[in-house]
């Protein structure tokens, strides 16, 4: 097992539940993108799971299935503190009832995060609304992590390396 890519404060931010955007690409290199409705960390950030609505993300899910490539951005709305993780071997499964508490906890956190930048919880609830039986969980071990907070250090490799 490799050492963690990410410093503890970033891991804490990600674990709390902040904005998550997921990207992939098809075989013709056309990118696909959707916002996740939840996220969770395991093994100190060595395993990350993001949750997507199947009907909102059909192209993205198809692309992840075909290429295994994912780029995932975690960002704290109020501070713009942002980290991007990349992986080449993402796996997918359908969400289970056991995932539900995680999704509920994520929604609660996001209501607070988005309210900090002036948008009411109703907007956040509509943005993240989903049915559990429509949810797909994508799990991956991040191979690279980049600081993507806007500013001088944006783009800095936090850890990992290209193959």
């Amino acid at each position, binding site marked *: 097992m490799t050492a963690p890519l990410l410093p503890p404060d970033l891991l804490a931010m990600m674990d709390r539940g902040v904005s998550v955007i997921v990207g992939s690409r098809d075989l013709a290199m056309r*990118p696909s993108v959707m916002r996740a409705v939840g996220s969770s960390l395991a093994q100190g950030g060595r395993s990350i799971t993001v949750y997507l609505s199947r009907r909102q993300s059909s192209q993205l899910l198809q692309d992840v299935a075909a290429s295994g490539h994912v780029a995932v951005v975690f960002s704290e709305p109020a501070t713009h503190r942002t980290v991007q993780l990349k992986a080449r071997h993402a796996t997918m499964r359908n969400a289970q009832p056991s995932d539900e508490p995680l999704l509920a906890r994520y929604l609660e956190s996001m209501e607070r995060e988005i309210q900090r930048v002036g948008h009411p919880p109703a907007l956040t609830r509509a943005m993240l609304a989903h049915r559990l039986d429509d949810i797909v969980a994508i799990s991956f071990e991040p191979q690279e992590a980049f600081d993507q907070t806007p500013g001088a250090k944006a783009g800095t490799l936090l850890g990992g390396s290209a193959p």
Partner: protein
Amino acid sequence: MNGPQLGDIRPCLEGAIPAAMATCGEDGMPNVAYISQVYYVDERHVALSFQFFNKTRRNILANPRATVLLLHPQTAAFYRLSIRYLRTETAGPLFEGMKAQLAGIASHTGMQDVFRLRGSDVYEVEQIEAVQGHPLPAPPPRAGMLTAVRRYSERLARCTSLDEALNAVLATLSDFMGVEHAMVLMLDAGSQRLYTVASCGYPTSGIGSEIGMGQGVIGVAARERTPVRITHMTNAYLYSQAMRSSFEAAATDAEALTEIPYPGLAQPHSQLAVPVLSAGRLLGVLFVESLNDLQFGFEDEDMLVAMAGHLGAILDLMQASTETPEPAPPATGPLAEAAGAPLRLRHFGANDSVFVDNAYLIKGVAGAILWKLLRDYVELGRTEFSNRELRLDAAIRLPDVTDNLEARLVLLRRRLAENSPHIRIEKTGRGLFRLVVRRPVELIEG
């Protein structure tokens, strides 16, 4: 294209909520980045703010395909745009429009020291996908804008003078758009400065105050001939007297003496300036501002652009009609005799500035006009004049044949009304007017 059109999702393009953008590098690795601005260019194009040399930038130059995720700020509905990079603009109308919007976004989000527009990346929109979801009900569409355009058009069509047209503009803004602070400025083509001819909602009218090309929101709208809209308080576009002084350090004492203070808000939270154009020429700027954030949306911008178009056409029409004066009406009885202590009027030929009892009144073309009228009055006893003779008078030095003489007369008339009520200019017919002098005058040259 099926599905939504770009015009249907303009609320998503106001910069209220950052968009997410996915690109793909040559190595096949996707990249996701937040993007501050997805800016409406036209029905087939958007422009994205290029702020940093980053992975997104490198990817887009190598592989022009990108996908953008937008969120509707009121309904939380998602839209996905498949776009293709075309080019980057680093100057001009699009760039300046985006730069202003970004300044507002940066200020609102505490990023004023970080966000800087390097370029406007223009993309063709290949597809817009309305993503399924559970959005909130859309707020009712804003009603009454078309009616407002109609009322304005009716008011303008009834106007027989530039004074009335300017009043119609300001009245429409306050009656139908809730605008509390507005200005109309005209271009002085010779000096390439804009001078205020009408305003409402300020402690002082600021009639005659000037703004240079490129200064503040108004000056940028004029220079680039494009609407400039800011939705939050920002220092980036504050226009104040102090700013002008530091910009123009060479300003002489004489220039300082003849400075009419800019009347605008010291701390505007929303600003919108729209160029007034006709036949491809810049005539002036229509400007509104507010103490509230987010006061002016894209619909207000649409409305102001429509109003400015009408105004530009009517300015040119009125100008043309005043060149062929209609016969003057018969004089309505003897004019009142000038009485009381004499007014001492001093004229400086260098800039045609005129002072009344040592108080600055006016300068430039309007100053030259006033001086000609007063000299003819004193030396020849004339009181009746025509626009046409002013245009033919070489001493007045109108910048060119297209210069809006009527606007100069409006400026002069309003400055006199505010500062020297014993001298008046009254319209007597199309392209005709009368000088009314209620006190004896003493003219001093230099």
